């Protein structure tokens, strides 16, 4: 019975909206009875678990939102397309979602590279785009330091992660000599490396060596042997779980047992699997979320996630879930499914409460948010502490 009333209400609402705007350029999406939101994620390819997990989070959030009456009286319709973890494919997917599916909002992509590849499409078509995990600094700011008007993110930036990890290494762990081994093919890793190096050296530490590997490499023994001969106290390895899992394993096999530090690219159940049993110890990384956090929102999210997917939620699930509600919040405050109004609403977000923390969008379209430090104990990610931004 309740459903019927809702249906009638939403019909009336839609009709009244239709009557109100027939001449607007962006009215295309208003004519439909759903609000179309494009989801551009890495569902296959080298960082597939990020995209799959983010998408799972978004879907859970949207399912809940739709069950509770949707937004502005309409249901949110997710159009999910795989970008195969490739830059060009990500741009293609965004174009297709914007021009063919007429979405009013783009969600994704998971990595900074893929997000940047899609951003010209969003900018040209004036459709707002939010990434929940593209941590590169230049995702929202272009090379001239100008803010990209339609691009937003709800996760902290690389430089911020690098800075926090450098401070963590110096102050919490008390190490002075570090070596960096970064993925030379990824903007993400480069951003973290630069920020880590700057902070670490400016605060009294020394970077003994800076080496690189390439995504999809499998043999790191040579570079690890050369790093070992330099006797660092700590290794900073910004990169993604697939290679870092192998690196940690090979480092330990070569007797390089110093602590290993990294960023949220380590966040994946595959990380433990690739490194192997009993290998992941003395590994720390910065992340967005820990399921061991016991605040009310996190507990509630964890329960509903478990009910739907019958497994523990990880950071990407949580980021995706927050992204779903963040989008709903913005559309609601925009008052109608209009790309310009949604964009303005996102830009003016203040104290949005999500499970990964509270988000306030700053003038650079980045959130102000805290960092969670995770420690790997026998392959199990454990909550160590929260570091707040200054």
């Amino acid at each position, binding site marked *: 019975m309740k459903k019927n009333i809702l249906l009638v209400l939403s019909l009336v609402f839609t009709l009244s909206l239709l009557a109100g705007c027939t001449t607007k350029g962006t009215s295309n999406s208003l004519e439909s009875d759903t609000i179309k939101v494009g989801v551009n994620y890495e569902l*296959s*390819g080298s960082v*597939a*678990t990020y995209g799959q997990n983010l998408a799972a989070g978004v879907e859970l959030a949207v399912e809940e939102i739709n069950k509770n009456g949707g937004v502005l009286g309409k249901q949110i319709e997710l159009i999910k397309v795989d970008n195969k973890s490739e830059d060009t494919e990500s741009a293609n997917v965004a174009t297709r979602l914007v021009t063919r599916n007429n979405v009013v909002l783009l969600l994704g992509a998971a990595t900074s590279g893929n997000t940047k590849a899609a951003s010209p499409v969003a900018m040209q078509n004036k459709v707002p785009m939010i990434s929940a995990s593209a941590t590169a600094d230049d995702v929202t700011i272009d090379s001239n330091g100008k803010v990209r008007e339609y691009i937003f993110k709800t996760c902290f930036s690389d430089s911020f992660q690098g800075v926090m990890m450098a401070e963590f290494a110096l102050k919490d762990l008390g190490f002075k000599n570090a070596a960096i081994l970064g993925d*030379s093919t990824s903007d993400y890793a480069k951003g973290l490396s630069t920020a880590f190096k700057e902070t670490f050296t400016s605060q009294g530490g020394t970077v003994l*060596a800076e*080496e*690189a*590997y*390439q995504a*999809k*490499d*499998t*043999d790191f*023994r*040579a*570079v690890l*042997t*050369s790093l070992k*001969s330099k006797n660092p106290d700590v290794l900073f390895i910004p990169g993604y779980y*697939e290679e870092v*899992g*192998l690196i940690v*394993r090979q480092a330990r*096999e*070569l*007797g390089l047992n110093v602590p290993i530090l990294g960023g949220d690219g380590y966040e994946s159940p*595959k990380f433990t*699997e*690739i490194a*192997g*049993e009993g290998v992941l110890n003395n590994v720390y990384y910065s992340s967005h979320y820990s399921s061991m956090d016991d605040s009310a929102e996190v507990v509630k999210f964890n329960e509903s996630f478990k009910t739907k997917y019958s497994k523990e939620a990880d950071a990407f699930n949580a980021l995706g879930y927050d992204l779903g509600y963040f989008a709903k919040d913005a559309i609601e405050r925009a008052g109608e499914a209009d790309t310009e109004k949604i964009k303005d609403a996102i830009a003016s977000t203040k104290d949005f409460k999500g499970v990964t923390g509270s988000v306030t969008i700053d003038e650079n379209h980045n959130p102000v948010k805290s960092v969670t430090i995770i420690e790997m104990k026998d392959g199990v990610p454990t909550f160590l502490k929260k570091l707040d931004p200054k």
Partner: protein
Amino acid sequence: MEQLLQQLINGISLGSIYALIALGYTMVYGIIGLINFAHGDIYMVGAYVGFALTTFLGLGFLPALIISMLVCSILGILIEKIAYKPIRNSTRIAALITAISVSLFLQYTMMYFVKPDTRTFPTVLKSKILTFFDGKVILDVKNIYIVAVTIILMIGLQYIVHRTKIGKAIRAVSLDKDAAELMGIDVNKTISYTFAMGSALAGAAGVLVGVYYNTINPLMGAGPGLKAFVAAVLGGIGVIPGAAFGGFFLGMIETVVTAYGGSIFKDALSFGILILVLLVRPNGLLGKTVKEKV
């Protein structure tokens, strides 16, 4: 000194895998003059067969290695019969394009069946670590296995090529296909044998890589396939000892470059060497200059 020894171990292990794949490349080129770009993907299939056998059937290292070699040799024969035989007399570019197509076909068919995710190999070889010089040089028993298996297979291959009737036929066909046919050699059968042997070596390399590096994925063949191609050209494409030499040489070069702080230039350098060798000694380091037939 210790670092040098450790790097030597790293280089030889990496090189033996390149060498195993390069051998198959070189054999196929030697007999029909085709750069078989699908070779790296046969190696990938080998890794997956090894993965399935050890994970789902719980087989040990050796049975998995042998079965995987068998499966890959059958796959090699099939690929030759279906894709390469019909275009044997076409232009070189047609053959090359077909080879690339077969490569992509194998990658994406495999991806459809096994999903694109990276899989982890079960530990079939217990990692036992031997240390020398107060723990400064570390040798994993797995390294010994890999190098030993590679050397045994190479000796086996040398034996087949130089001491058996099949080997004689292969050498004859690679020298002159038409003359060999006139002498009563079944050329089709000989080519099939060559593909079978080359693919079996790739399959072995796949299992070894799975065991050594622990992870496999449907696109893993592309990188090492290309490196093995470089190794084969370095040693002199078509020359069997040359491929083995080229593989070890490339593995050592990459290791030495990385050891002296050039990890960023590693790949650029290995392809740079390829260009240099092609300019200075187009027939490879161990290749002989073949006079034009008149």
